[in-house]
């Protein structure tokens, strides 16, 4: 699980071009949107693409997507249960 979280953080940094950030700067449980990393709606689309491209996960329900994208931990949990790649 820890390996998955580290990989996920690296993928988030690369995909969202979070310049100057390292995986150590992202708290596992901090909110990704709003007060945490301060991501916005376009970032959420990019994260959906990241999940589909790297893990074969397609989230159709927006409410479910909101829960999945709450934090790195919630994303990692969901990936572990639903990954196809």
């Amino acid at each position: 699980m820890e390996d998955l979280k580290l990989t996920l953080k690296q993928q988030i940094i690369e995909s969202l071009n979070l310049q100057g950030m390292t995986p150590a700067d992202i708290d596992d449980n901090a909110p990704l949107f709003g007060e945490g990393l301060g991501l916005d709606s376009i970032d959420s689309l990019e994260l959906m693409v990241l999940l589909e491209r790297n893990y074969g996960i397609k989230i159709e329900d927006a409410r479910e997507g909101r829960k999945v994208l709450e934090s790195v931990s919630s994303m990692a949990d969901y990936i572990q249960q639903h990954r196809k790649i």
Partner: protein
Amino acid sequence: MNPVYISAAAALSPQYTFEAEGLLQDVRSSDNGKLFVTDADYSKFINPVAIRRMSRLLKMGISTGMKCMQLAGIRSPDGIITGTGRGSMRDMEIFLGDMIRLKEETLNPTYFIQSTYNSVNGWLAMQTKCNGYNQTYVHRGHSLEMALLDAQMLLNETNERKTYLVGAFDEMTDEYFLVKSKKAYWKKPVPNSLDLFKHSDTKGSIGGEGAAFFTVTNDKENTICGIEDIRMLQDPDENEINRTIENVLQRHHLNIKNIDLVLCGMNGDSRFQPLYANILTGFTARTSITAFKHLTGEYDTSTSFALWLATELFKRQEIPEIITLKKGIHSDIKNVLIVNHYILNSASILLLKGN
């Protein structure tokens, strides 16, 4: 139509035009046929959260627009009107490349969203909280001219003092350069950019890019110059260019003896050099003849660099040697003609009058 006036101007170009105090004192050149913009510190002008997603063209356009507003001392314009010949080439190339590579699945939305032509305008409107008129013209070699004409028409329709942010931006990518090399756009062999005009007997030019913005108003007070006339020509020959210049001068009760300076857009290509023949020989000893594409390269909206350069010449009343083809004996710089031709056979003529 009544003239409109430029109160401030900013340009990002291959030269040090964005922040340097002197005008074209240290000159950059290139030996590979490409003149890329000298990047500025874009983080000074763009929201730090948004900048990470932006392509170079977006950063160039937004920063130049914001810098122009700063120079004019305006927080929000009455409208934003721009021109771009090609828009966000890099974002479009990445998006199309991904479509092939990923078989049209899981495509990143950012490149699609920001590859649209009006991205720069949208961001400028958000950053300046401008809810007014917002338009982007994509008319290849006439893109900036259309934006200026639109601003002029809007400003002529009202008696209220209004100021529009008008500008242009175009980027060059390696792929674009490669594609256009197959259409004989570029010189072979490649000369040093500063020697471009020494090779005007062979086909081709050098590639370039840039962004320039202007605050354009209908109130003459505290402005640099007036745009008296804007003419656009498609597929002109030398005679049509000469006739149009005569017509413009006549309409404004001027003759060629009254023109202090001509800014020529010759690009070193032998196919288009005859268009400038009369300008190079027909003006009197009074008129200075200058050229600029050895400093910027050829691109759709290069008239924007010429217009920015004209505003600097009006302010400084001195012509740098690096742009001078013929030094005139005029006492000051008051009436300026810009004559520019783009590689796709579109040409424009602008008459400016210093205030």
